[in-house]
């Protein structure tokens, strides 16, 4: 018998949208949406097993092979640079990785630029490419607060509508990269479950285009 495909889905809104695509592609598992304490959900006929994990952990589950495939935002992939295949752009969870700050801010290039972010690797890489020395301030949430209180000069964060920024007198200063959710796969498992994963990929591609 063929082994089931283990799918890591990110908890939250993005995961719900991603599951809708999987269901549309013929990999439904209604149990997934019920309120219960189960951790894994199977659809034996379709040959899939789902589990919810913290969005930033999806890449780790896939890279280390606990999940064969997963759905992860491009932001997470940029930050952790996992050694995985990135099979399709699911076109959901669209936003932008940006540098934001007080609307009037221009970098004076006089000293070290203080950058608050949840994505230290992305921030370091972006500024290193410009040979700009920065002080990374790693935060876990409410990043927008940092420039308001003078904790940092700018922030590097994902921006969806820019509404939160605008309400706090901040705006996008530079765009680093567009972000959306991607289907990723473990490289080694893909070698042995290629047909199953490719069938899933084709189904999802169709669902994305629909």
């Amino acid at each position, binding site marked *: 018998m063929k082994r089931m495909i283990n799918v890591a889905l990110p908890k939250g809104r993005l995961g719900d949208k991603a599951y809708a695509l999987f269901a549309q592609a013929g990999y439904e598992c209604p149990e997934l949406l019920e309120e219960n304490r189960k951790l894994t959900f199977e659809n034996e006929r379709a040959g899939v097993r789902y589990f919810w994990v913290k969005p930033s952990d999806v890449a*780790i589950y896939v*890279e*280390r*092979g*606990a999940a064969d495939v997963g759905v992860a935002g491009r932001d997470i992939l940029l930050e*952790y*640079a*996992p*050694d*995985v*295949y*990135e*099979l*399709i*752009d699911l076109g959901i969870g669209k936003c932008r990785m940006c540098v934001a700050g007080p609307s009037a801010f221009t970098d004076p290039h006089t000293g070290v630029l203080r950058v608050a972010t949840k994505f230290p690797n992305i921030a370091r890489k972006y500024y290193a490419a410009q040979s700009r020395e920065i002080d990374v301030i790693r935060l876990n949430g409410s990043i927008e607060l940092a420039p308001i209180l003078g904790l940092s000069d700018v922030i590097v964060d994902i921006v969806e509508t820019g509404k939160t920024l605008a309400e706090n007198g901040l705006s996008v200063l530079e765009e680093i990269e567009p972000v959306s959710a991607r289907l990723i796969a*473990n*490289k*080694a*498992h893909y*070698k*042995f479950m290629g047909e199953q994963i490719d069938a899933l990929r084709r189904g999802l591609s169709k669902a994305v285009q629909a």
Partner: protein
Amino acid sequence: MNPATLSTQERIMFELRELYLDYGYRPYKVGKFEEYDLYMRNKKFLASEQVLSFSDTNGRLKALKPDVTLSIVKNAKDDGRVQKLCYTETVYRVPRNAYGFREIMQTGLECIGRVDDYAAGEVLMLAARSLGRISERYVLDVSNVGVLSGVLAEEPIGDADSARILAAIGEKNLHGLGAICGQLSVSQKTRERLEALVSACGPLEQTLARVARLDLPQSSREALGELRRMSDMLAAYGVKNVNLDFSVVNDMDYYNGLVFRGFVEGIPAGVLSGGRYDNLLSRMGKRGEAIGFAVYLDQLERFMEQKADFGTDALVLYDDTTDPLEIVRAAETLRARGLSVRVQREEEPRPPCREVVRPGKEANV
């Protein structure tokens, strides 16, 4: 020797050495320490850039070697003769997305001097057979970086941008590849060629036949020709499970020609990696060609784990009243019967065993 004494890792290490010796590869030992400078000059060749360094007693900066190939190449003779070497070594490096250094056991082989089609084919065959020794369910992905570099050479793009394109190819990331090509204004023709190559992946012989029909530049065709000859040789050796996959990309500053990577079902990361690295030789000021691969034995740690109960056949128990000579006699009698025997005090916790003996006591349980 009882094969069960060996862990999976040790058994495979011995089997692989036997395999390499059978094909005339000479065992080669490199020192544990190496000049730090060697790694700084060849950073990009290393899987991770971090090196565990220390000051030697004479003040020179040394490193615990993170890689074996560099040391072998550094010491290789430059006399035009072919050297076939195999090794088992411990290296120290920080695995991708891990915290801190790890000690990693590696075995592998190198063929340095002149690498003709026969020599390259032999190394590929040995790579596939190495995987076969680990498990029947293996895949060897093979590519030739010359195919992609031939296509990219037709575009006026710099090294940094080529690296971005190769990274997307390594991820089989077609949407990302399209986006980068768009940004760099890469011609439609090149873009289509790259996409066709990334999508072509499957059994070596059949996939090569499919790729041969693509419209590709001359240098890419030559690289495909080499793959074709390799495919014929592997077929003659009766080697199976070899796939063509252009997403196998290694740093082009060091690697040229064949590159390959091996996977075994049940292990979530690659267990074998290798390729043709003439460029490394010329960067180190040596003439000649080279090809080789390494098998990451540390990946086998959790693979096919036997139930290690560490029990013994017999247990000899004693207390303060037992005569030590009686213990020796009892234990040796049991050993003479071919049993494994553990001797311990009565009050200690007992491992699983089949027989318990209390020397000098009347009732043996």
